[in-house]
């Protein structure tokens, strides 16, 4: 005899978030009268310990065996309540969560009655579903104790090292031939003034030396299959083309020069090259995009190098996306960029100063620089309707977080090195928020840096100065620090403090099925509850792939990502939700429509059984290979197959409850 249904129904106030709009007490009263409901309660905050305890107590003391909760979005706390229900000894899948906040109280604020009726219908539907709930067990699978980290910049390196130090194996994939990412292009880092590459190399050395980390350079992810615990990843690695010991010889033999991206195109490098002196790996590599089978003369012989890409398949339990950022590239003519030689970006200036470290004077294009202006918020804090949209129709309305401090750090360095230089900072708000950052602002002011405050609605105008002028460039700007005085600032150099944008990783985003935010950076599940996880279980974010961050913050985020990977894989197994197809063998007559409809290999097949001496065919599901799409469900002529936890009968019951008139619902009492 089946157990008697005893449904407990809980309507959460959500500390007012729900109860300000929805009359929770009325909802609870009506729910109390629904069939099989033994208790219907409200709570100020059901997710609190006291709220959870109440549910546990009802399960233990009232014998509640189905639980329906109306609260915030299930994405936030479904798991919280599953755990609570489990603690009380009930199967966690005998609980159903109804979203009354994001999909009701928050979106019907001006229609309280409508919101209350809607809550009643949704809760009644939840109860209707609960009547059809069956206990389910998660699918437990062995997990690969290996993680893939994509991107070997500061964040990727840190994540790889932390994961390996905690006992898992790591595959680290880097697209370029050299490790280090954007951090390698920096010189001194704020707020400590340490040398960026020294810090980076300490990290790289630990990564390279770690026995559990395999590093692939010139490698890209080409395919991802599977799920958390068991991802299959196909990596394509290009040939390095040059043996380390032959590096000097091959570089010398290489005649072709191309723009050097390490110096943002301001210099040229060979097609066979090292990114910078001391880079890792130490040996040179061939840039196959430019090499194009040009013959080289080496040791008196003519040779042609061949790229022989290797395909490497790895199995990993989790994937860390540490794909980083690109500096915003101003469009042609934006603040004169690309039109005036005297307009450059801050990353370019950092590289140029590094290249001319020993110069006693500050020169640009052979002319001494006496006056320099740094313009903040280029490609950041853009305003819809004011700033020109980018290719995708959007403006970058976010703050890039690091440019203020980076720019003031530069100003202080310039001032120390060239005390006679006049420096102008054109800004909207100075955002020197971190430890030691404000000191740069103070030093800059003390050092005589002139601050000019512009408004985002009226950005500074940069143009060539009239011929015969003392300076090549003239900036016009309204300064709100001097009561909106229109200033004309003649300068020798304009430096654009450009923001950050995510790398172009469309292919990877598609392969991983992760979401991007409106800012196009990769999106976390929830900034506070699950700040480094994506909605795809087992895909974790590290560093600036997620949004602008400085080095310290990237490293922190990377370590946090490592902690998440360890939580997922450290136990050597993962549990997947049980929402896969299940066949009712009594109803199945072996027609096989389900097998035809299924596109997942090995998910469902017909097997022969002996039934009272007769051979019969029945469909059998292999849960690990089933994704629960339900294509088999729709085609079954006998309704013999369902996705567990999401059955058609459950949906029909829910639809019936929603379709009921509110009068019937209330009067069903």
């Amino acid at each position: 005899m089946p157990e008697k249904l005893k449904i407990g129904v809980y309507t959460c106030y959500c500390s007012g978030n729900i109860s300000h709009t929805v009359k929770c007490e009325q909802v609870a009263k009506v729910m109390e009268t629904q069939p099989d409901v033994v208790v219907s309660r409200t709570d100020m905050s059901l997710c609190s310990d006291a709220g959870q305890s109440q549910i546990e107590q009802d399960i233990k003391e009232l014998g509640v065996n189905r639980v329906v909760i109306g609260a915030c979005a299930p994405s936030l706390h479904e798991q919280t309540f599953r755990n609570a229900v489990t603690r009380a000894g009930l199967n966690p899948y005998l609980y159903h969560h109804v979203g009354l906040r994001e999909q009701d109280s928050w979106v019907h604020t001006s229609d309280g009655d409508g919101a209350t009726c809607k809550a009643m219908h949704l809760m009644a539907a939840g109860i209707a579903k609960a009547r059809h709930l069956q206990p389910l067990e998660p699918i437990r699978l062995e997990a690969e104790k290996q993680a893939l980290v994509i991107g070997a910049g500061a964040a990727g390196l840190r994540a790889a090292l932390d994961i390996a130090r905690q006992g898992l194996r790591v595959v680290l994939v880097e697209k370029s031939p050299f490790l280090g990412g954007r951090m390698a292009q920096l010189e001194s880092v704020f707020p400590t003034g340490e040398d960026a590459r020294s810090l980076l190399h300490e990290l790289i050395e630990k990564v390279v030396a770690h026995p559990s980390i395999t590093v692939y350079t010139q490698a890209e992810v080409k395919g991802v299959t599977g799920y958390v615990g068991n991802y299959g990843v196909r990596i394509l690695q290009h040939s390095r083309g040059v043996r380390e010991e032959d590096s000097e010889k091959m570089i010398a033999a290489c005649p072709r020069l191309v723009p050097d991206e390490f110096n943002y195109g301001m210099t040229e490098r060979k097609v066979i090259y090292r990114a910078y002196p001391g880079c890792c790996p130490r040996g040179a590599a061939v840039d196959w995009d430019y090499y194009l089978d040009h013959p080289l003369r080496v040791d008196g012989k003519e040779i042609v190098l061949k790229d022989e890409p290797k395909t490497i398949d790895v199995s990993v339990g989790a994937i860390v996306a540490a794909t980083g950022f690109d500096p915003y590239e101003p469009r042609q003519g934006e603040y004169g960029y690309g039109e005036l030689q005297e307009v450059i970006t801050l990353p370019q200036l950092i590289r140029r100063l590094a290249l001319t470290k020993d110069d006693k004077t500050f020169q640009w294009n052979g002319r001494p620089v006496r006056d320099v202006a740094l313009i903040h918020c280029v490609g950041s804090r853009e305003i819809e309707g004011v700033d020109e949209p980018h290719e995708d129709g959007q403006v970058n309305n976010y703050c890039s977080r690091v440019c203020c401090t980076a720019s003031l750090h530069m100003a202080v360095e310039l001032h120390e090195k060239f005390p006679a230089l006049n420096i102008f900072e054109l800004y909207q708000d100075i955002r020197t928020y971190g430890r030691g950052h404000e000191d740069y602002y103070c030093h800059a002011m003390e050092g005589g840096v002139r601050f000019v405050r512009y408004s985002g609605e009226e950005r500074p105008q940069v143009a060539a100065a009239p011929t015969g002028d003392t300076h090549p460039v003239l900036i016009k700007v309204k300064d709100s620090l001097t009561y909106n005085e229109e200033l004309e600032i003649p300068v020798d150099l304009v430096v654009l403090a450009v923001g950050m944008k995510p790398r172009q990783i469309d292919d990877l985003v598609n392969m991983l099925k992760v979401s991007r935010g409106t800012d196009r950076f990769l999106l976390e599940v929830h900034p506070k509850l699950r700040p480094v996880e994506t909605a795809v279980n087992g895909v974790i974010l590290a560093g600036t792939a997620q949004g602008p961050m400085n080095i310290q913050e990237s490293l922190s985020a990377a370590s946090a990502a490592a902690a998440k990977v360890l939580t997922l894989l450290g136990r050597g197994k993962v549990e997947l939700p049980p929402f896969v197809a299940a066949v009712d063998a009594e109803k199945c007559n072996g027609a096989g429509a389900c097998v035809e409809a299924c596109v997942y290999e090995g998910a469902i097949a017909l097997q022969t059984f002996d039934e009272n001496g007769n051979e019969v065919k029945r469909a059998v599901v292999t849960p690990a290979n089933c994704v629960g799409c339900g294509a088999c469900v729709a085609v079954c002529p006998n309704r013999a197959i369902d996705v567990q936890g999401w059955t058609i009968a459950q949906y029909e019951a829910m639809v019936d409850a929603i379709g009921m008139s509110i009068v019937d619902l209330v009067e069903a009492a």
Partner: protein
Amino acid sequence: MAQPIPPPQPKILILATLAGGYAGADSTGQSHIDYPANTYILPIMCPVMFPPEFFIRAFERGIDGIIVMYSGTDSPYKVEAEGTAKLINQTYALMKERGLDIRRLRLAAICTVCVKPFLKEVTQMAELLKGIGFVKSELAARPVSPSAQGATI
């Protein structure tokens, strides 16, 4: 109990994928933007699990409009884009047989942060139903077609 009973409104059922429309509806909630309350969102894994008869049955049980908010080609399921389109077309055929206005069923690709598209779909359907009214009237007037009988599941 003083129960406020507003006049009945046409009911919009929204079947929204967890990886798409359902999350999009949550995003809309997080933006605190109001839309009509006669909308009932049920989470689904993937629309392809529903046979066309499911929709007909829903109309018969008092649902006046249905929006399937799926993830389109961005779906985690290989079959979702193609399979759902096929399903909707089959359902349209059944609706026509029964004299149901096929505009009562809409398919829309809604992503996790698609606040504006979500609102547009909801508002459009609400407006449409204001115009064409409850499904009851169409069902009452329907010609009984032979294939309709026994098709309920």
